[in-house]
């Protein structure tokens, strides 16, 4: 290929303009805003104004704790479930594969608002179908919305329902790229199915699983709609408030852009750390 600056940039410029205005510049701008006191006009440079407040803010630590708690529990559960789904959907013994695929993959197309509404209704205290079903098998009903532990569990259940199939699609694609003869050789050597899974499938899937984990962690870290709509603005009493919700309240309810930017950059810092860990985990062995 010879150098073709003019032609290349004619194709590239429209996208690059949008990319620069609505992605690159905001990344820089957000960083700068986090060092400004934004509740006075004009804004003034005050490096410790937001970051100092963040370090001493119990609301920040509450949101950080909730977000990390959801991350640590929900992501491993969901990824494990997605691996199980993908492996079983890939089994040659499965009949009516299309129906099972539909069941697990359908949530991928369901919008956050629609499914939040359904979950809210299904889990309501007295008339929710879940509590009715619990009651009918002799269990006591659970107050999903007034206590922190069930409310957190509900958020995790909802997110897992919505995203497990999405991850299963990616893992299934990874599974299908493993050559058949690897398993044939193992079967000839009388390696059991379970051992094949742990010693062949999982190691070969590692890059895909790590990719899914990183994608899920970054997604869950910004969790907003579910605690906003299902548990009613992070209720009960901030028990399900996440960093995403704190950013929304500070930025768009209190119009405190500086502080909200500091919260956003905390999320970015965590995301960068997680990405670096991913690169380290999937590095080529030397």
């Amino acid at each position, binding site marked *: 290929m*010879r*150098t*073709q*600056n003019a*032609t*290349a*940039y004619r*194709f590239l410029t429209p*996208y*690059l303009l*949008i*990319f620069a205005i*609505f*992605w*690159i510049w*905001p*990344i820089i701008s957000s960083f700068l*805003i986090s060092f400004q006191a934004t509740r006075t006009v004009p804004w003034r440079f005050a490096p410790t104004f937001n970051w100092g407040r963040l370090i001493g803010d119990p609301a920040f630590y509450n949101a950080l704790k909730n977000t990390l708690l959801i991350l640590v529990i929900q992501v491993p559960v969901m990824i494990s479930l997605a691996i199980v*789904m993908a492996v*079983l959907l890939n089994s040659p*013994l499965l009949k009516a594969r299309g*129906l099972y695929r539909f*069941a*697990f*993959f*359908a*949530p*991928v*197309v369901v*919008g*956050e*608002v*629609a*499914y*939040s509404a*359904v*979950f*809210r*209704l*299904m889990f309501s205290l007295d*008339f929710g179908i879940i509590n*009715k079903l619990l009651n009918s098998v002799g269990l006591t009903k659970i107050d999903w919305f007034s206590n922190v532990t069930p409310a957190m569990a509900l958020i995790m259940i909802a997110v897992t329902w919505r995203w497990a199939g999405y991850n299963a*699609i*990616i893992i299934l*694609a990874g599974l299908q790229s493993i050559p058949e003869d690897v398993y044939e050789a193992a079967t000839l050597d009388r390696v059991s199915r379970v051992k094949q899974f742990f010693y062949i499938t999982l190691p070969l899937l590692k890059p895909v699983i790590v*990719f899914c984990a*990183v*994608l899920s962690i970054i997604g869950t870290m*910004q969790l907003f709609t579910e605690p906003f*709509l299902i548990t*009613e603005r992070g209720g009960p009493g901030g028990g399900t408030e996440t960093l*995403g919700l704190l950013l929304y309240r500070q930025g*768009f309810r209190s119009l405190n*852009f500086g502080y909200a*930017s500091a919260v956003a*950059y905390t*999320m*970015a810092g965590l*995301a*960068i750390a997680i990405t670096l860990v991913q690169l380290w985990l999937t590095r080529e062995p030397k």
Partner: protein
Amino acid sequence: MTSRLQRRLGRSIALHLFLTPLALIWLFPLWMMVVFSTMPDNGIFSPGIELLPHDGFIDNFNNLQRDTNFVGAILISVSVAVTYTILSVLLTSMAGWALARYEFHGKGAVVAIIFGTITLPYAVVLIPQFIMVARDFALANTWIALIVPPLFNSLGVLFMRQAFSMMPAELFDAARVEGVKEWRIFLFVALPLARPMLAALAIILFLASWNNYLWPLLINSQPGAMTAPVALGTLIGLTKVSWGGIMAGAVMLTVPMLIVFVLLQRHFIAGIAAGAVK
């Protein structure tokens, strides 16, 4: 031999015995969404267990339309999603084409910046985007505000770059020898060849726009300018509201996408699985 067949049969039964309840649990919320959307409010909030659809969808839809102008919001959502998808496919395939098929100054830097920032959370740009669009450009509650800022999404660029770089160079060189202009090669040779990839990309982009919630919630909060998810979201949590109506809205947002999913499953799955191709 019999024992091997028996073991195979046993494994097959175990597989279905495990997977069927899991599949039913997974379908349950969607099934209940449909059931709720056909039940009157006093039926939803009654002690009995109802697991089958009734015939109240039209009443619920009328209740929804009374609570908010949902039809208007759907029209906005459809127009925005269609426009966004067309523009985004065009912009990202042009950029992907340039990155895949030309050598130029700054190429390394462009690729590095796209890859280097792809895992940054969207939350980081939310505040500056809002300040820019709402205050500096004064475009809140317009279609431009809904369509243009989300066009920054770079996944499509990487996806199309991948698609174009897998095509053999001879295809395009032959056209060049004939003196065909570069933009014609892109439009009439490269794009038709990339049709399956364009379909996958378009579906994913349309779905993303159709379901987008946070940005439209922030930027288009005026009643007449809301998208359908935002309009529906404003009803959740109100005390005097028809839940049957909300569920009718949820069905209207979800069922068309489920139909598209069933019809175009291959492209859907290709689009999602391609997220993993880096």
